[in-house]
């Protein structure tokens, strides 16, 4: 593309990263009659019958415009496109709030096993007992990690989980005959919190954080009344700071009859150390694609299971996975003897699962466990997705938890917090640190010193790309000016962290010595800074 870096003074030489050749659209490779697929011949008596005899004449399609390309065209095109992308496998991805940790490859292999993936959602429960067992164990593990009593795996993303949790809260109050309209959200919250609350039909009340970046108890008291359905919190909050008054906060909310919702985006900071259930949260969602290492896929698929305390269990979405055993006590706690009358159910004996050295599954009658979807849930909020949620993602998360075990999960949190604090210690002199409080797995810097010298946080972010490193989350949380929100995760090692720190320092120097280099960044990426104003004003959304 022949971009020029005019600042010859700079000692920093960047090599072009990724594929900088511009790549045409797949449709531009199209040539009439070219084919890239192979299908068997149709070997049926009706193979020559006119389509108009098989379909109504007035519903026959006249024209279908799609590419006509060869297999190699397609492979090359998307391979070239992939080279213009940056993933966790390319390098550090320090997006605050996003937990971009390494995505273990074994998870991918497991999710692709034919016996686990080649299953139809309407297959009889008896034909998918292996999968249901995995899902059940995942559910139990998540309940244990979070200190909740029951978990649904159905929501397909974090925001979907929030929506689910808020619907549960709404239904709970409806059944109690209380009409509570307000959901309180701190000003540092993720945008999905107020959006989900609004979508669930609540009025959103935003409260200002205090000087330490935490919930301001006085502000909270002011808005608390009998009309409050819930307070949504993430703890540690989006500044990475632990809300130390959480018990007090929970008491205040519970005292007016409201519930506490935990946004699980930051769970990587607390595994094995704190459990939301023990902090008196009533509902929470997990982000399997953050904490539990499943890949983000360039924007999905994710998975956002929801956990609740016992009293909210009846409201969980349909269907809910449960286990039935032949022993006197059924494992779902109903005390009913299991009945196997359903002909749709294959009641073959299930072999023993591996015995773990912790004996966590001891006492369960493994041979007799039968997993079933429970649709008979009259108080449920209903269905959120056509089937059971993002099953393939759940397999990966289960594989991760099973591989790490209790110790591995705790170690994960420890190292996530260590990495973040190390980076903070090394960066806080060069960049302004607006909140001095102890932080956990992420921290927020402000680019105001650099802004005064003429370069914005956006410029810094773009300049980082030139060094082959992804930028932190910027301009969020909204309570920090020129925010740079950094979350390294536990999977980066000290060398990678040092490199990032050094780059941040170099950029800060560049802002003084060769400002245009920073202001006009990026220079070495597959494409230069893109004109977003033009994209919005002259919308071009398709070929």
């Amino acid at each position, binding site marked *: 593309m022949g971009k020029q870096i005019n600042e010859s003074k700079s000692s920093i030489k960047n090599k072009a990263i990724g594929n900088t050749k511009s790549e045409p659209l797949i449709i531009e490779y199209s040539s009439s009659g070219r084919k890239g697929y192979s299908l068997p011949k149709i070997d049926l008596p009706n193979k020559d019958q006119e389509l108009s005899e098989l*379909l109504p004449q007035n519903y026959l399609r006249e024209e279908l415009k799609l590419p006509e390309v060869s297999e190699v065209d397609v492979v090359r095109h998307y391979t070239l496109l992939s080279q213009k992308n940056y993933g966790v496998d390319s390098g550090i991805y320090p997006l605050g709030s996003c937990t971009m940790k390494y995505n273990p490859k074994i998870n991918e292999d497991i999710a692709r096993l034919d016996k686990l993936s080649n299953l139809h959602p309407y297959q009889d429960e008896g034909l998918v007992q292996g999968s249901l067992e995995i899902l059940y164990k995942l559910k139990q593990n998540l309940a244990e990690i979070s200190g909740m009593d029951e978990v649904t795996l159905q929501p397909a993303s974090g925001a979907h989980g929030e929506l689910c949790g808020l619907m549960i809260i709404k239904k709970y109050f409806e059944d109690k005959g209380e009409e509570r309209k307000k959901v309180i959200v701190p000003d540092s919250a993720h*945008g999905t919190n107020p959006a989900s609350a609004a979508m669930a039909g609540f009025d959103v009340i935003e409260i200002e954080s205090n000087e330490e970046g935490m919930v301001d108890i006085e502000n909270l008291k002011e808005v608390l009344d009998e009309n409050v359905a819930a307070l949504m919190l993430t703890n540690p909050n989006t500044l990475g700071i632990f809300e130390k008054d959480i018990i007090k906060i929970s008491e205040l909310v519970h005292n007016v009859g409201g519930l506490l919702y935990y946004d699980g985006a930051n769970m990587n900071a607390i595994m094995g150390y704190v459990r939301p259930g023990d902090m008196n949260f009533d509902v929470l969602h997990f982000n399997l694609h953050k904490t539990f290492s499943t*890949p983000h896929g360039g924007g999905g698929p994710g998975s956002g299971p929801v956990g609740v305390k016992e009293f909210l269990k009846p409201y969980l979405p349909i269907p809910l996975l449960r286990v039935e055993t032949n022993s006197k006590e059924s494992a779902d706690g109903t005390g009913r003897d299991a009945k196997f009358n359903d002909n749709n159910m294959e009641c073959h004996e299930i072999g023993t699962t591996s015995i773990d050295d912790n004996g966590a599954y001891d006492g369960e009658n493994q041979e007799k466990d039968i997993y079933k979807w429970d649709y008979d849930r009259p108080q449920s909020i209903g269905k959120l997705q056509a089937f059971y949620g993002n099953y393939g993602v759940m397999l990966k998360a289960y594989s991760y*938890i099973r*591989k790490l075990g209790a110790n591995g999960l705790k170690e994960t949190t420890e190292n996530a917090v260590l990495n973040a604090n190390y980076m903070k210690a090394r960066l806080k002199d060069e960049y302004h640190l607006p909140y001095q409080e102890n932080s956990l797995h992420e921290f927020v810097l402000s680019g105001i010193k650099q802004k005064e010298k003429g370069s914005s946080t956006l410029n810094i972010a773009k300049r980082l790309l030139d060094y082959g490193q992804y930028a932190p989350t910027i301009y969020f949380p909204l309570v920090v000016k020129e925010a740079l929100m950094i979350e390294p995760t536990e999977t980066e090692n000290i060398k990678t962290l040092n490199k990032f720190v050094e780059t941040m320092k170099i950029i800060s120097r560049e802002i003084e010595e060769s400002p245009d280099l920073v202001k006009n960044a990026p220079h070495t990426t597959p494409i*230069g800074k893109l004109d977003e104003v033009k*994209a919005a004003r002259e919308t071009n959304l398709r070929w």
Partner: protein
Amino acid sequence: MSYISNTLQEKEEMLKTIGIAKMEDLFKAIPQEVLFQGKLEIPAGLSELELLKEIKEQASRNSSLDEMNSFLGGGAYDHYIPSIIDHIVSRSEFYTAYTPYQAELSQGSLQAIYEYQSMICQLTDMEVANASLLDGGSATGEAVLMASRITRKKNIIISKSVHPAYREVAQTYGKQQGLVFTEVEIKDTQTNLEQLDSAIDQNTAAVVIQYPNFLGSIEDITKIKEMLNSFKRTLLIVIANPIALALLKSPGQLDADIVVGEGQALGNTINYGGPYLGFMACKEKYLRQMPGRIVGATTDQNGEKGYVMTLQTREQHIRRGRATSNICTNEALNALIATIYLSVMGKHGLKEVAEHCLRKAHYLAEKIETIPGYIVLNKGNIFHEFLIQPPGDTKVYYEKLKEKGILAGIRITSLGYKFDALLVCVTEKKTLKELDQFINALEVVKNG
């Protein structure tokens, strides 16, 4: 084993830099009263070898579709998936990337989404499409909310010939905003048009129709659109099967206002119901009310063409409580799969897949009708699914066929229909031999 690469020595060095003595000090901001004192009751970790062995052992209790002769459909379809798809989406630059917020290092994802939007528009003949929604069900939910925002009306009419799960999801979404749903009955496996006609009035925000419908029949959408024409601001939402659209008149030509659907059939593994992707397209005049991400083309400072997420002011991270939807993470990788599928199958391949489905389904339906006692319920036209009623108890027949390794279809009473029948689905993967095996088995189970 966890995925941590710092050595003990490095950790010490890091603690020193931070200025603390031990790991626990990192957590000193957490008050003692909430610290978890116990140990998580989660089994100890495994090596890769042990893990794989354990999981395979568990998986052995499943029966995969390849081990049976399955005729299950109903919104999750077992189509052929070209080899190249998994090879391309396994490129970790794609699957380990985040949402493309830093456009300059995300051109691969962004251009692919632009191509996806383009091909969804071509397939549906609509003007604009978004970057994907969570699945066909939630896309239906988002569509009714969108229709309500556009029309400022609250009443939604939905046919009982729409997928029962989609109807449920739409109602779960809609009732939060006070939407009122009216379900229209079925007549001969299609929407009862007379009842529909009398249900529509000036308060109707939208009519929701599936095409082909859940029971396999092709609805007369032209007629339904005509019913709407006498009302101002009542939208037509069509839930379309993307494979069927290769042969069927496009929703755009039928003047649909919003088109949604399940995109799984486009190259995505059947995966026990997810992850799938919901697609959504609409008329351009409704663009601002469309939920979800949208990618647009633009240029960089040198005039090079590039792609960015655009019109983001509709979304939660900017408009927060007043956004068009709370959706953030969508199904980008599944949309990439659909994009590759539509590219490699292309204009001719998609049509050929659809023809396989159509001809094989017709062959099977006609053969079944010739077996005395069996009835095919669809009176109208079908694409690749249809309803059959066996001469006796459907459940008994289903079980007998299962013993023979045949999953004969979905028993529709299990999804809330008042009458029982088997919803039979045929895709291009079915061979003549498998179809004939089914036909023979139907005869055998009838006689024994």
